[in-house]
């Protein structure tokens, strides 16, 4: 597992202007140099925010996918994608749950 490198790709996108440019021009090429597993690379380049979230990528970094509109992720589809793999828990409305979305069993 290389969650560290998934986080690092998005950290550099936000903090390194040159790398950010590469992510805009050739995102697939830019991420190629990082030692990601096949599943991680697949989740990243398909913009599968829910899968990346479940793998443990930090939400602050996931947010950059929408912010910089990378791999098909944008502000409009971000929330639905991160909630993919979670389900709404109705106990929330009864005040019995602190979270309204919980991971599916």
């Amino acid at each position: 597992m290389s969650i560290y490198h998934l986080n690092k790709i998005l950290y550099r996108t936000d903090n390194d202007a040159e790398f950010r440019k590469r992510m805009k021009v050739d995102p697939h090429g830019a991420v190629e140099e990082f030692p990601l597993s096949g599943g991680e690379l697949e989740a990243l380049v398909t913009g599968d925010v829910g899968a990346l979230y479940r793998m443990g990528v930090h939400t602050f970094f996931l947010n950059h996918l929408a912010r910089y509109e990378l791999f098909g992720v944008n502000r409009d589809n971000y929330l639905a994608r991160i909630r993919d793999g979670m389900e709404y828990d109705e106990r929330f409305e009864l005040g019995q749950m602190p979270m309204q979305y919980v991971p599916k069993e």
Partner: protein
Amino acid sequence: MAKLVLAAGVPHPPRLVREIADAPGQLRAESLMKQVRTYFEKAAPDVIIEVDSDHFVNFFYNNVPAFCVGAAQESEGPQEIWCPMPKYVVQGHVPMAKSLLSFGLKSNFDLAVAEELRLDHSMMVPLHFLNPSMEIPVVPLYTNGFAAPTPTARRCYSLGRMVRRFIDQWDANQRVAIIASGCFAMDVGGPLRGWTDEQWVTTVSELLETGRYQALARRATAQRMAAAGNNSTELLNWITLTGAVGDVRPLFLENDNGNGYAVWELE
């Protein structure tokens, strides 16, 4: 001798400066910031300690200090290109930062130190409103709030007490203000985005208003803060502040959608 004259807690919404400029009327956040600013002007501090958590702009997972004192001569921020507000140069206070570092180490607080900093919006939004001329030097005191596991709330409370002991013995004719930067409950980029855990906000507010700071530090467990949203660990910075104010209760405390605004007058 140095003296702690004021403590203030405020949030740091990264788009607040733009939102205020674009709003047809006055936003509640703007009037609350102005209210805090009034007490800041009255207290006239010579130096600010800003207790904050970096949002992966200055620190990354390659090097995450639990606590770190900023000892740069000057620093710039906000660094985020997506944060719509003026860019500033902030003056540091190296002698104070180094003295705090030494005092902390002698008090069994193994603080890290950084002599070059990239300030993010969470440092800059409070300073934009409370130190707009940027003439008052700032010593950043970072707590790891986001790269789990984070320090416990009880440890942050002890950190605040240590900071107060440091100020009280610091041999400098300086009036000191402490700013805590952060929210009570919020989710940024997570599945709970847009929701505020009002139950937790009420609990936090009541414990702060009644001065039950150690009870707050006991109740603010990592699990409880996480349940209130991924950004809710910013409460740790408020808890550090409460360690520094002693038994004094806040002069006022207001909420605005999970964001707290408060002032403690200490003289």
